[in-house]
């Protein structure tokens, strides 16, 4: 094995909220190596790299650079020790030129003034050295995303980086730009820079990396030579269920269509399609799961369905009426309930009481009013106490601020409101993320029970494979803003198969999905 330039030994990272992001992770990379770090979202790749780059502390473990143990206090320290990082979200200044961005912090000076010519010259020199085709005088805002990424790489190189971390560099690139990036990475490798390549695009990993380290749920699944692996094997190492969860449920008896999504499209502020022609229907009495690697349009779809954002074209029909142009309130009145992805941002008002949060959607309804004008406080208090009991929210009482509760109990407040709002369409986006097992089980069972007993239709968006596979009846997979696979029975899909569709190794044709959307 080539000489080791970096070794991370026994890294353990626990976030203040108790989430263990990395658990005794050990891996090393050699000189002149492109080393892949793969894993699902939330597997701990980014955390591990943030520790290496000095952006996060770790509880245990040590870092060795060129065989010498180093403590990395902050990103500046990391840069000084030869580590450079290209973030997923660029740290660029769009209104400035390429040269200004690249030399910021290490500006060349002449006669006490910023020497722009020298900045351009230095930038161009280093760009030419590694064969980066980029104009040092161009304004960053006029560049394509691919070129912006080159600027980020140049920023690291000009400060003398010998270990370069690329966090999902190809996620934002076109195929041609990806090719170009790979050429440059080979150049860098050959001139002595070690590259850590974070990705979940397996074909890319197989093509350019010599070694792969796989993370799953914060644990290291080992480091392998890519020549000993194939995409299916990596996918199996990456995607897996630790504990297999079973939910007993009868077969669904879908009745009339409640939610119809027709050729829905939405663009982001860069004009890129984030929802790209999605079509599917959800019927009364069934749960439709949406799986996918995060960032493939699920959040955007959820925002559109909840009425939090507009869409460009297509249509969404809820209970026979289009939701186009309706306010969130109007959509809720048409029968939508929404368990938001981030409960603290959209699910609850943290500083307000449990009662206020549970009743937030119904204060204005007629049957909670007295004399047609005033809120019926007694009735509200009585119902809140009943819901606290029904949903087993452990708290001091209805007046306690929601922020004081544990994550699981906060989510119980959310579902106590959403499950009892009388809606026949439930949109559940990551309903059990980061909460205790007991509450998660209650939420999942309630979703299934409501669909069977009350005939609600549910769209369940989740990154938790257990959850989508076990709770859902039908299962759809989203990738790059499109539905790429559809399965009639979620609990008969194996996680390996699912992983292959999520990661883009396979894709179904519209004919194969016909009748399943």
């Amino acid at each position, binding site marked *: 094995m080539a000489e080791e330039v970096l070794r991370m030994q026994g890294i353990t990272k626990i976030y203040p909220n108790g989430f263990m992001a990395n658990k005794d992770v050990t891996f090393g990379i050699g000189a002149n190596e492109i080393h892949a770090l793969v894993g699902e979202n939330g597997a701990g790749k980014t955390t591990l790299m943030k520790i290496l780059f000095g952006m996060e502390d770790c509880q245990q473990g040590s870092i060795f650079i060129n065989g010498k143990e180093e403590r990395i206090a902050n990103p*500046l320290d990391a840069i000084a020790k030869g580590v450079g990082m290209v973030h997923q979200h660029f740290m*660029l200044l769009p209104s400035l030129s390429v040269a200004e961005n690249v030399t*910021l*912090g290490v500006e060349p000076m002449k006669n006490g003034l910023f020497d722009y010519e020298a900045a351009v010259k230095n930038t161009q020199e280093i760009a030419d050295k590694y064969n980066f085709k980029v104009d040092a005088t161009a304004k960053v805002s006029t560049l394509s995303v691919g070129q912006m990424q080159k600027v980020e790489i140049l920023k690291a190189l000009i400060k003398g980086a010998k270990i370069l971390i690329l966090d999902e560099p190809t996620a934002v690139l076109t195929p041609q730009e990806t090719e170009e990036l790979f050429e440059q990475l080979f150049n860098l490798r050959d001139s002595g820079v070690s590259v850590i390549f974070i990705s979940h695009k397996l074909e890319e990993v197989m093509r350019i990396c010599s070694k792969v380290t796989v993370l799953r749920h914060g644990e290291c699944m080992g480091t392998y030579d890519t020549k000993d692996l194939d995409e299916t094997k990596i996918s199996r190492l990456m995607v897996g269920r630790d504990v297999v969860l079973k939910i007993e449920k009868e077969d669904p008896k879908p009745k009339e269509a409640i939610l119809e999504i027709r050729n829905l499209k939405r663009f982001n502020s860069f004009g890129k399609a984030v929802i790209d022609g999605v079509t599917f229907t959800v019927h009364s009495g069934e749960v439709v799961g949406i799986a996918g690697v995060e960032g493939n349009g699920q959040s955007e779809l959820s925002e559109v369905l909840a009425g939090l954002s507009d869409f460009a074209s297509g249509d969404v029909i809820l209970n026979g009426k289009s939701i186009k142009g309706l306010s969130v309130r109007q959509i809720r009145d048409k029968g939508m309930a929404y368990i938001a992805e981030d409960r603290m941002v959209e699910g609850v008002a943290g500083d307000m009481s449990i009662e206020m949060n549970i009743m937030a959607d119904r204060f204005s309804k007629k049957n909670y009013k007295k004399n047609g004008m005033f809120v019926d406080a007694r009735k509200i208090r009585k119902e809140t106490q009943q819901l606290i009991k029904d949903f087993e929210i452990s708290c001091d009482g209805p007046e306690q601020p929601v922020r004081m509760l544990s994550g699981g109990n906060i989510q119980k407040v959310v579902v106590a409101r959403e499950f009892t709002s009388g809606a026949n369409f439930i949109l559940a986006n990551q309903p059990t993320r980061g909460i205790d097992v007991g509450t998660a089980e209650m939420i999942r069972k309630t979703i299934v029970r409501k669909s069977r007993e009350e005939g609600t239709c549910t769209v369940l968006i989740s990154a938790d494979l257990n959850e989508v596979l076990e709770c859902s009846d039908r299962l759809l997979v989203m990738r790059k803003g499109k539905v790429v696979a559809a399965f009639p029975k979620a609990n008969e899909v194996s996680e390996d198969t699912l992983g292959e569709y999520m990661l883009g190794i396979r894709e179904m044709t519209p004919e194969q999905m016909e009748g399943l959307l």
Partner: protein
Amino acid sequence: MSIDIVAFLADAIKMATPLVFAALAALMTRQAGMFNMGVEGMILCSALGAVTGAHYLGGVWAGVLCGILTGVVTGLIIAFAHLTGKTDLYLTCIAFNLAATGGTVFIMYLLTGEKSTTSGAFRSYQIPNINIPILKDIPVLGRILSGQSLLTYIAVLSVWFVWFLLKRTRVGLRIRSVGENPKAAESVGISVTKIGYISFLLCGLFAGLSGTFLSMSWVTFFMKNMVNGRGYIGLSAQNMANGSPIGSALVSLLFGATTSLATTMKSQSNFPTEFLEMIPYLATIIAIVITSIYSINKKRRIERGGK
């Protein structure tokens, strides 16, 4: 009714001078990412500082220096509260402006026993007007451009200075980087706090000049609440020009013209004075709404999948 166009334009330039300084002051902190409403109060304090300095030290230039110094000190007070004390910038600025409104009257009363103006108690000093050779002999243009206050010409130079500072010096580059993306700046080792102080210092310099112009050139005394919203107008001028020094100056000139228009019409017509005095502020609101609609529409077009 007859309007002397030449006099109107000359007046417009004069009225624009304090606005240009105010806009540059606001621009300096905006470039570092801070929307500094305190400019209004800083200008007011400087106006009082200038006449007080001139009176007690007995000279125009001492007055100018005191005006600038007051601007810088008040700027640093806000900077300290916001950057070191981590207070909310908007609340700090509102509190500061209110304190400045009352505080200037209080200090004036302590020094002169007057509550509305220093004109009787303090000796008047006026910053000289400058006749520019050659230019002054050109018909029309000479009457418009020559014979303005020295500070008006300094305002023109300041626009260039700010442009040069931002574009050609290291500190300018760093100010812009902090304003655009503090995280990116911090990630390459730039101290966001230090840059914040520097930008407030420069902001104080221009606020000081704006106040000095008002109390030593526009008139030659300090009076209660004499800034009258010019700080806010300067703030919106640089906002509309998107932080460009030259653009801010041009927008300020436009606002100067509306102020001048109001003054001219006051003497020429029997329109209600109160309505005419509203013109500069109304023009500001209309201009802000138009620029904002334009940028929102542009964003919306992209999200709808257009070009």
